[in-house]
C-alpha cells in the first residue's frame, strides 16, 4: 500500500491514479483543514508544505509523493495554533470567513521560513492566495508582526502572548480566558 509522510507520521492510503494530494488528505486521512477552492492551482486554499516549501496540493498527484518527502498540513503546523504566524493572525483577527486562511497561513509560514524579515515586495510575491472576504491588509500586517516576534525570540526574548502581539497595529482587545 502506498504511504504518505504527513505531519510526522507515515500513513497508508489508497487512491486511484491521478488523485490529487488534496483529496487524499481530505477524504482519506481526515485532514480537512486543507481546503478546495479551485482545483487548478489558482487560489492557494489547498496550500501545504512539502519539505518546508509551500505547494498547491490540488494539482499534485498523491502518487508523485515519495514517503521520504515530508508533508505538513495546517493541522501539523503546531498542535495548538502557536506558530508566530498563527499567533499574529489571532492577534490581528485576520480571518473573516476563514475558508482561505489555512492556505494563507501555510503560504505565510513558508515565506517567513525562507525570508525571516520579508519586505512588502516579498509579501506581494509570495502571498498570491485568493481571499474573497478581503483580508489582505491584515494578512500583510500580521506577517510583519510575526516576523518581528520571530526575530525577537531568536535573540532570547520571551515569546509574547497573543494579547500582547501587534498591540500597536490594530489595538484589538483580547481578553485572556475568552475563546479568542
Amino acid at each position, binding site marked *: 500500500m502506498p504511504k504518505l509522510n504527513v505531519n510526522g507520521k507515515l500513513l497508508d492510503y489508497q*487512491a*486511484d491514479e*491521478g*488523485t490529487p494530494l488534496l483529496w487524499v488528505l*481530505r*477524504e*482519506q486521512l481526515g*485532514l*480537512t*483543514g486543507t*481546503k478546495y*477552492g*479551485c*482545483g*487548478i492551482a*489558482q*487560489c492557494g*486554499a489547498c496550500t501545504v508544505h512539502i519539505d518546508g516549501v509551500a505547494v498547491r496540493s490540488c494539482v499534485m498527484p498523491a502518487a508523485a509523493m515519495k514517503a521520504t518527502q515530508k508533508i505538513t*498540513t*495546517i*493541522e501539523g503546523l*503546531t498542535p*495548538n*495554533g502557536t506558530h508566530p504566524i498563527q499567533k499574529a*493572525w*489571532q492577534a490581528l*483577527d*485576520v*480571518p*473573516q*470567513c*476563514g*475558508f*482561505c486562511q*489555512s492556505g494563507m*497561513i501555510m503560504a505565510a509560514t513558508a515565506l517567513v521560513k525562507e525570508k525571516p524579515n520579508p519586505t512588502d515586495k516579498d*509579501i*506581494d*510575491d509570495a*502571498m*498570491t492566495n*485568493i*481571499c*474573497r*472576504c*478581503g*483580508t*489582505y491588509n*491584515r494578512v*500583510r500586517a500580521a506577517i510583519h508582526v510575526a516576523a518581528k516576534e520571530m526575530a525577537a525570540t531568536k535573540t532570547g526574548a520571551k515569546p509574547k502572548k497573543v494579547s500582547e502581539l501587534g498591540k500597536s497595529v*490594530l*489595538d*484589538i*482587545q483580547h*481578553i*485572556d*480566558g*475568552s*475563546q*479568542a
Partner: protein
Amino acid sequence: MSTTSNPSKRDRTNTDTAVAKPSRRTFLKGSAATTAGLVVGFHVPFFNKQAMAQGIAAAPISPEVNAWVVVQPNDKVIIRIARSEMGQGSLTGLAQMVAEELECDWAKVSTEYPTPGQNLARQRVWGDFSTGGSRGIRGSQDNVRKGGATARMMLVQAAADEWKVPVSECSASKSVITHGPTKRTTTYGKVANAAAKLTPPTDIKFKDPKDWTLIGKRLARLDTVEKTTGKQIYGMDLKLPGMLNAAVKDAPVFGSKVKSVDDTAVLKRPGVKKVLRVGDTAVAVVADTWWRAKTALDALKIEWEDGPNAKASSASFAEVLKAGLDAKDAVVGHSVGDARAAIAASPRKIEAVYSYPHQNHVCMETMNATVKWTPERCEVWVPTQNGEAALAATAEAAGLPPAKCEVYKIHLGGGFGRRGATDFIRQAVAIAKQMPGTPVKMIWSREEDMAQGRFHPVTQCKMVAGLDDKGEITGLSMRISGQSILAYVAPQNIRDGRDPVVFQGLNAPGPEASIGYTFPTFLVDHAMRNPHVPAGFWRGVNLNQNAIYLESFLDEIAHATNQDPLALRRKLMSKHPKHLAVLNAVAEKVGYDKPAPAGVFRGLAQTMGFGSYVAACAEVSVSKEGGLKIHRIVAATDCGNAVNPQQIEAQVEGSFVYGLGAALYQECTVKDGRIEQTNFADYPSLKLAEMPKVETVILAWGGFWGGVGEPTIAVAAPAVLNAIFAATGKRIRDLPLKNHSLKA
C-alpha cells in the same frame, strides 16, 4: 414575525423570501416543542454526537435561562445566535449585544446556533434567521438586547428570591450578583436553574448607550482561533457515518433540460454507486469519495436539450437593454418635479450611457450541502444565509412536513448573497432522496459554481443632465434598463411592475438607500428587461451600479462645468447632512485641500444604503503604458452605533477587495446561452499585491443601527473610476476595467 424586522426593509434586501409556511399546529404537535420561556434546554442528540466528533461546538446540557442565554453551573455563558456567520463578524457583534444587557463576564462567553426547526416550534422566538442585506446587527439589535436584558433580570430576581430581599437592592456585573446592603454575592451559574423557572419580565429597559462596556469595543472575534488552526469545520468538511459524496452538473443553458445520459462506462468505475437524475435539469454521480464522484461526472456522457435560450449571448442582452433605455414601458422609482421638461428646456445637456455586467459571487467555499433523507425525516447540514428558507426548501424537496425536517447551520466559507438562495439545498435533498437512509454530501466543483451562479444583475443606464447658462443643474434623469433581482427570487414582491430594490441609493430622503443630493428636478425610472440568466443578491446589490452611474456622472458634470467634484457635491448635499458628513470626513482625512502627491490623482464617491452612509476617496496613478496603481483609499462610514469598530474596519477593507476585484476584472459573459467563465483563471479576483492601503473613518454618533457588510462596496468602483479620469481623461462607463486600455 420578529418584533424588530421592518417589512419594507425586508422586502428591499431579503436574500430569499421563501420563508417557511408550515402549519404551526401540526408542527407543534409533531415535535417536542416547548413554549417560549420555559425551562427545557434543547439539544439535538444526533447532531450533538456528530458535532462533537467533528469539533463543532456541542449543544448545551444546561437549561437555558431564556431562548438567547444558557448559563452553565461553572458560569460559562452560551449565547444563541440566529444569524449566520459568513465572515462578516456579526457572530461576535451579536454576542456583544446580548452580553452587554446580560452583564455577564465576556471572557466566559461562547456561542451556538439555534436550529430553524426550533425557531418555528417556538413561535420564532429568535426572530428572523436570514442573514443578508447587512441586516445581521441592525435587524436584530432590539431582539438580542431584549434577550440579554430579560435573562439578566431573571437571574437577579432568582438571587433576590433566594436571599429573600427586594430585587431593587440587587445588581449584576460580570456575571456576579451583589446584594447592596449586605454585600452578599452569588454568580449567574449558581442561580441559573432557579432563574429559568421564573416568568420572564415584560417591562424591559435597555442600558443607556453611555453605560455600554461591550458595545463599541474593539473586541477580538470569538471565532478566530479555529480559523487559524484548520479546526473550523465548514460544510465541505463534514463527515457523517456511512456518508457518500455527490458531484452534480446542472444544465449549462439556464432553463434547459437533460436529454440523455450514457452511464455505462461510469458505473464501472471504482467507488461509483449511482448515477442520478436531479429533476429534469441535472445529473449527479454518487460515489464513496468526492474526487471519484467528480471525475466520474466529468467522464459522463450527457446530452442536453438546449431549448429556446441556446443562442442567447451577452451581446444579445445588451441590445435588449439598449432598446430599454428609450422604451415607453418604464416604472418610476423617484421623481421630483418634471425633470424631462426641465432638461428639454435647458440650454445645455450632458448625456452618457453606463452599464454593469453579470458577475458571480465566487464564495471561497463552493456551494454544498449534506443531507440524510428517510421516508420519516430529512436532515440537512448546510452553510446557509437563511436557515428558515433552507428549512422550507428542504421540506418541499423532501416531500415531508417541516416538522419532520431539520436544518443544521454551519459557518459559511463566504456568502455574499449567494447562500441566501436555496437552489443547491433543493438539489442536495433531491439527490439524498434517491439514496434513502444514506447521508450524502453534495459539493459543487468550482466550474459548477461558476456556471450555476445567481448573478449580479445586468443593467444599463442613460444619464441626462440639463444645465443652465451658468452650468448649474436644472434637472437630472436616470433611465435604468435591465434585470430585476426580485423578478427571479421573489416575484411576489413586485407590485404594479415595480421592483423597489432597483432604485437602491436613489430613493427619496428617508432612512434607507436614499439619494444624497437635491436637484431642482429629478427622475429615475426602470425599464425591466430580464434575460434568462438568473439574477441574485450579490453583496452590495443594486447600490453597486447605481452608485457608479450617479457618482461617475456627477464627476462628468463637474468636469464639464469646471467645478471641483467635491465642491459640486457639497453644493447639492446641503439638505443631506448625514451623507455630507461622511464625505467631509473623507475629504479631511485624505487632505483634499492639499494636492495629492505628484503623479497621483483623486476620485470621490458617496452613497447611502443598508442603513448606513459611506464615502471614499481613491488615490491612483496610471503609468504611460496604462498600468493602474491604487495607492490609498480613505473611506468613511456612519452606521449610527458601531458595535465592534475593528470588525467594521475589516468589513470596509474587505468591501474594497470585493468591489475593486469586481471593477477591475469580473464579468460573466454569456455565449450560446451559457456562462463562459469557468474558474479563477478566467474570472480573476483581486490579489494581495494589488490591494491599496485603506484608512477607515468610523462616524458613530449613535441614534440608529446601520449595516456595514455591503454599503462600502458601492463606492469602491466609482471612486477609482473618477480618479482614473482625473489621471487620464478617460471616462470608463462600462466594467470591468480589464476591457479598457488606460494607455496614454
